[in-house]
């Protein structure tokens, strides 16, 4: 990255353009950006409906749940851990929050309980992974089953909305200045954690811990605390997703969110975050999430069999990883 590019040391427009071109062609984010842009242009030409405020709002609302969880997952993956339990969290948090709301008619209490569940499951994941020393993929896969079982144990049917709190319905379906609330939550959370990851000490710790835990320990970084924070953050953001989903579905369903974890993790990896930790990008995650949402939206708009959504999601993940692998090899050969 440093050695070959002495010519761009000159200041001014030229160097800015060189850097932009480099970003577009040589980074995962840039490649994703180009793909997203190409598909957006294609869909705008092909469909009258695509590039309208309403459709873009729908598109981003639909993806906001995956996106919010993916933000936490990005930080967790960079710190070298993973959380597969987020899918079951969608069901578990959903049924409990809906039942609390039905019984107390207190929105603040319901949301607090939901977020607290995120903290608790995050802490359990952290304790099993970090204290018992069990690989976090296995630990959280086990938690995926346990949390799903807990959701089914809590209720064997879906819990309908009997409280009719208007503000609660607004969370998933309302608008603020013409922008859907889920999209506002999604953008706000993304921006906050973009800054946390790139501009704060904690963000640097996350990278250091994931890149080389031994070196980070020697440098005096509280490795376990940083990873624990990652687990709790992912748990809480999964709860936020669950609450938005709950509001959109208007009922707590114990079977919801199967495969959600694979979509969230897939988006993060598609965004260029490394599975082995230490490397990753929030912008990449954002673009990946938008790309997946655009494809699904496009398939609906172009009136293609909706089963293609699943296929295309898979193929896109493979293509993105393929591009990333080629890029890495090119850089290795330089």
């Amino acid at each position, binding site marked *: 990255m440093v050695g070959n590019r002495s010519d761009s040391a000159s200041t001014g427009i030229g160097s800015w353009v060189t850097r932009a071109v480099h970003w577009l062609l040589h980074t995962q984010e840039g490649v994703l950006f180009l793909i997203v842009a190409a598909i957006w242009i294609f869909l705008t030409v092909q469909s009258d409906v695509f590039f309208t405020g309403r459709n873009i709002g729908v598109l981003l609302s639909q993806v906001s749940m995956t996106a919010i969880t993916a933000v936490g997952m990005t930080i967790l993956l960079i710190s070298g851990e993973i959380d597969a339990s987020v899918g079951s969290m969608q069901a578990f948090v959903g049924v409990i929050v809906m039942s609390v709301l039905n019984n107390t008619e207190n929105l603040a209490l319901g949301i607090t309980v939901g977020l607290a569940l995120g903290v608790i499951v995050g802490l359990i994941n952290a304790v099993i992974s970090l204290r018992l020393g*069990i*690989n976090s*993929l296995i630990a959280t896969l086990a938690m995926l089953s346990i949390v799903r079982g807990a959701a089914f144990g809590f209720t064997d049917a879906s819990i309908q909305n009997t409280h009719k709190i208007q503000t609660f319905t607004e969370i998933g379906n309302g608008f603020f200045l013409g922008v859907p609330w889920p999209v506002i939550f999604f953008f706000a959370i993304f921006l906050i954690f973009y800054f946390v990851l790139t501009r704060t000490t904690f963000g640097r710790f996350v990278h250091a811990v994931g890149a080389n835990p031994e070196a980070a320990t020697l440098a005096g970084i509280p490795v376990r605390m940083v990873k624990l924070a990652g687990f709790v953050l992912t748990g809480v953001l999964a709860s936020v997703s669950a609450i938005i989903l709950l509001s959109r579905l208007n009922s707590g369903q114990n079977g919801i969110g199967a495969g959600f974890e694979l979509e969230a993790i897939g988006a993060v990896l598609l965004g260029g975050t490394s599975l082995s930790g230490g490397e990753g990008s929030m912008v990449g995650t954002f673009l990946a999430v938008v790309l997946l949402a655009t494809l699904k939206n496009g398939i609906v708009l172009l009136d293609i069999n909706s089963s293609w959504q699943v*296929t295309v999601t898979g*193929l896109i993940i493979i293509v993105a990883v393929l591009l990333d692998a080629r890029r890495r090899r090119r850089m290795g050969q330089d």
Partner: protein
Amino acid sequence: MAAIPVGRKRHQNGAMRWSRLLFSREAGLVILLLAVVALFWILEPSTRQQRVYWDLLREISPNLIAAIGVTMLMLAGEFDLSIGSMLAVTGVTTVVFFNSTENMWAGIAAGLATGPLVGGIHGYLVTKQKMNSLVTTLGSLFALRGMVYVYTNKMPVSDLIGFWDFQDAYYNNLGPAPLPFVLAILLVILALIVLTQTEFGRNVYAIGGNETAARVSGIRVNLIKFMLFVICSSCAAIGGMLLTMQTGSGYFNAGGSGFELIVIAAVVLGGIALSGGKGSLVGTVLGVVILGMTAKGLRLMGVNTNIQLMVTGSIMILAVFMHSFHDRIAILRRR
């Protein structure tokens, strides 16, 4: 434990050999299995019939066969998450060829051929394109499932001709043993011989232990990994064939409710390290049987299917903790 330092000096000491066996991973799993069986024996009278256990062995055969491939792949440090989708690909392909060729063997051949085909693609992407296998196969999990959805329009594909021999084979027995289980055990023995008695097997362990060292010492890492991906998908295809025989139709959602996770859980329960290079196929077999027995016992007790999930998850954590405990003791003993 006091005898250990003495035993270390005299390796051929009989007592030492016994203590080795007693403290081995597999012994711990056998004890866990016996505990699970004993528990259900006490709690649920219907598990006291012999028939239940033969049924169990029939039901776990697809998982067991798929787990062989996953074990071999994980020993070399790679993953395959797509095996659940493979079940559906194999099933649908088989039945579609049944109907179009009206020939049972053509259908079976076509169904089984999907294994090497998909495995070959995975092998190419991972070894030649240097893609991470976990993410690549996560992608093909979606891609394959989606293709099955598109092709079948989310409708089961029925065997229009009625190859009853095909279905009977699943339910028939060889002596007291269910045929699918006989097949599974034969494959386990074959894989066990390959892993422990051949150069190929030693190389698999070497690659999982330290890939760079294996490469430097002249092992053809890429070729072996490629073959392992083919083996893994082929095992999944055989498992998918058994499921197809069970129902006589190609079901679009076969293996769709986390088959890959259940198999990987069983493999990890059996003591195969996620980082590769460590563990044995015997552990995997025990892992599959333990999880299968737990699920069946709970089902017979009439416990909610989903409480079963909680129990499975807890057993998994317990087992992995047991393995890490075992590793720590092993380190202490070596000192």
